[in-house]
């Protein structure tokens, strides 16, 4: 666990960076400095992150899987599936038909594959390939298309493939209707199956290349190893045998040492496991493992957590890469924040292999899609491993079947404290006096991007996403200001 530096007794100054680019939504970073210009605390404010639960209240439970898709433009499918799992419980369904279960898994693998591909190829790889201090104008997808067009196009094709799966199963690119209480509402046709199957070998190959590239970059750049590195607990779902599991499993948590804190925990009891701390400066809560307490119980979720947490990956190529990853950790867990990217591509490879396996399964084109509803229940809790980490959807309904109470813990919330810790580590190392530089800004962004936070699916309406950096002292005076591309 990272030890938080004790604040200097003298009045701290505040550095504010607002908002963060290349991260979904609006974000602002405040860096609290002590008198010696050391960063003693980082506060990552996410200003758009609110209102989810209220948004859902009062709606019929059957609508929820479709309504919650609108929360996020990047992982609508994850929200739909987590909500669908909760709704299955509300209608008393425990087990889906084999076809419905596999279609949901296929949908989820497609979603994770396209999200991970977007992240690595289009967001992270320019930083990793060109260097954090390289020209901002170059360090983006346009620069990547110029310098490494083949690599960039593989990212385009991987995204496209993942979205083809989503479109085939849900019928639409966005807001498709796929899940129903107790199953799915549309079968996958043989023609759709064959089209997807025809492209999957290439997809697996591109993922293998991406894993190899990540490993090469990470091993070759020693400075990446401790960049924003923190020691943390890890939380994720795992399967019954301790394997990597993205759709359904039990909760497992490991301490930074690798010791298992809990395992096979039924996620429907998550309320006994987690608490969410509220801090006055943040809209976003700070979850922690109750057994470890507020101070030490924070944890990380997402690819780094999942690949560290599991005992094996149930597809051969990804499992081989997981072993290499763990070898890099020399027997311990891998805590390098930038190793998120490496782990993310191992998962992408697992998704591609799993997609191939599912498409070859005769159940996938079956027609038995729904099981009869059972006794209605008042509460349903669905948990899934979304691309960015464990996603909790918890609903309580009234006698009319309307949502009375909802609680969502999204992965960005789970990573809240961890992102602040990583930012503090990076800022303390790279902030020089009271001068804000593009270099510092991008180093902070690189740390945030490793977690790939989805900052609530903000609107993108034109003119609403400026990038400003401000250095503000405690008297509210702006000491320095930076806009994207130079001084204001």
């Amino acid at each position, binding site marked *: 666990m990272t030890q938080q530096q004790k604040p200097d007794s003298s009045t701290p100054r505040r550095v504010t960076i607002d908002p963060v680019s*290349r991260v979904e939504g609006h974000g602002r970073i405040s860096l609290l400095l002590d008198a010696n210009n050391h960063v003693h605390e980082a506060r990552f404010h996410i200003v758009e992150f609110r209102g989810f639960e209220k948004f859902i209240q009062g709606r019929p439970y059957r609508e929820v899987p479709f309504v919650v898709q*609108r929360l996020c433009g990047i992982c609508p499918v994850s929200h739909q599936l987590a909500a669908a799992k909760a709704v299955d419980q509300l209608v008393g369904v425990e087990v889906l038909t084999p076809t419905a279960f596999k279609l949901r898994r296929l949908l989820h693998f497609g979603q994770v594959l396209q999200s991970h591909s977007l992240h690595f190829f289009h*967001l992270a790889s320019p930083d990793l390939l060109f260097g954090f201090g390289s020209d901002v104008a170059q360090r983006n997808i346009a620069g990547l298309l110029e310098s490494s067009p083949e690599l960039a196009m593989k990212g385009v094709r991987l995204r496209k493939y993942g979205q083809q799966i989503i479109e085939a199963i849900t019928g639409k690119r*966005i807001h498709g209707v796929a899940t129903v209480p107790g199953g799915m509402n549309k079968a996958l046709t043989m023609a759709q199956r064959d089209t997807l199957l025809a492209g999957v070998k290439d997809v697996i190959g591109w993922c293998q290349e991406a894993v190899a590239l990540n490993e090469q970059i990470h091993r070759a750049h020693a400075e990446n190893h401790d960049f924003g590195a923190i020691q943390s607990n890890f939380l994720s779902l795992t399967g019954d045998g301790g394997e990597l599991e993205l759709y359904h499993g039990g909760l497992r948590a490991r301490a930074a040492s690798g010791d298992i804190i809990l395992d096979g925990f039924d996620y429907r009891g998550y309320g006994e496991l987690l608490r969410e701390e509220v801090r006055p400066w943040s809209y976003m809560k700070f979850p922690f493992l109750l057994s470890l307490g507020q101070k030490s119980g924070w944890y990380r979720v997402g690819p780094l957590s999942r690949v560290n947490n599991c005992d094996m990956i149930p597809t051969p190529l990804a499992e081989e890469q997981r072993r290499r990853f763990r070898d890099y950790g020399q027997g311990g867990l891998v805590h390098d924040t930038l190793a998120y990217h490496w782990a993310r591509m191992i998962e992408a490879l697992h998704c591609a292999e799993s997609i191939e396996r599912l498409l070859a399964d005769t159940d996938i084109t079956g027609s038995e899609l729904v099981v009869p509803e059972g006794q209605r229940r008042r509460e349903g809790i669905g948990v899934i491993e979304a691309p960015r980490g464990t996603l909790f959807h918890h609903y309580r309904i009234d006698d009319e079947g309307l949502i009375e109470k909802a609680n969502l813990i999204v992965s960005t919330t789970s990573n809240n404290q961890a992102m602040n810790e990583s930012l503090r580590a990076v800022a303390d190392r790279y902030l020089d006096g009271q001068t804000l530089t593009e270099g510092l800004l991008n180093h902070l962004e690189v740390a945030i991007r490793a977690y790939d936070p989805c900052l*609530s699916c903000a609107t993108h309406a*034109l003119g609403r*996403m400026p990038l400003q950096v401000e250095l503000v002292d405690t008297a509210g005076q702006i000491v320095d200001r930076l806009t994207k591309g130079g001084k204001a």
Partner: protein
Amino acid sequence: MGGMLVFGYGNPGRGDDALGPAFVERLARENPDAADNAEYLSDMQLQVEHVTDLCGRQLLLFVDADAACQPPFQLSRIHAERDTSYTSHAMTPQALLYAFCQVYGRKAPPALLLRIRGYGFDLGESLDARADTNLREALALASRLGVADAQRWQQSACGHDDAIIAGRGSAEDG
């Protein structure tokens, strides 16, 4: 493919951010016969893989909500531009056109951007009444120009790069 691509983007769950997809949805619903000459697409935001949707089009019409343009809407011709506006999960249409040039090594199809003025962007909100009025004005423009008549849309843009057509009235005035 071919003909005209009408691409509305925005988050339908965030109030007036839905204007782009709503434009496409209503246009398609009210003009089913235009489907032979135009394709309608909607998405939450533009991303680089959308370059593959632009191939072979006679004209691209991007439709988005705008929090600051003159109401009810503005229609502009746009060009490929390399800019620094790339965010994690959204590209500008100009940047998408630029990516098209990079990917395919040729000029992107001619493109217009229809910006419809929105006012509220909060999660879970429906369209603001003024935004809805603006949307109807924009749809009326589409009817005047011919829904899938790429030639007329292009002619209307001839020689103008910015705000070639602005709506006739302001919802705020009305």
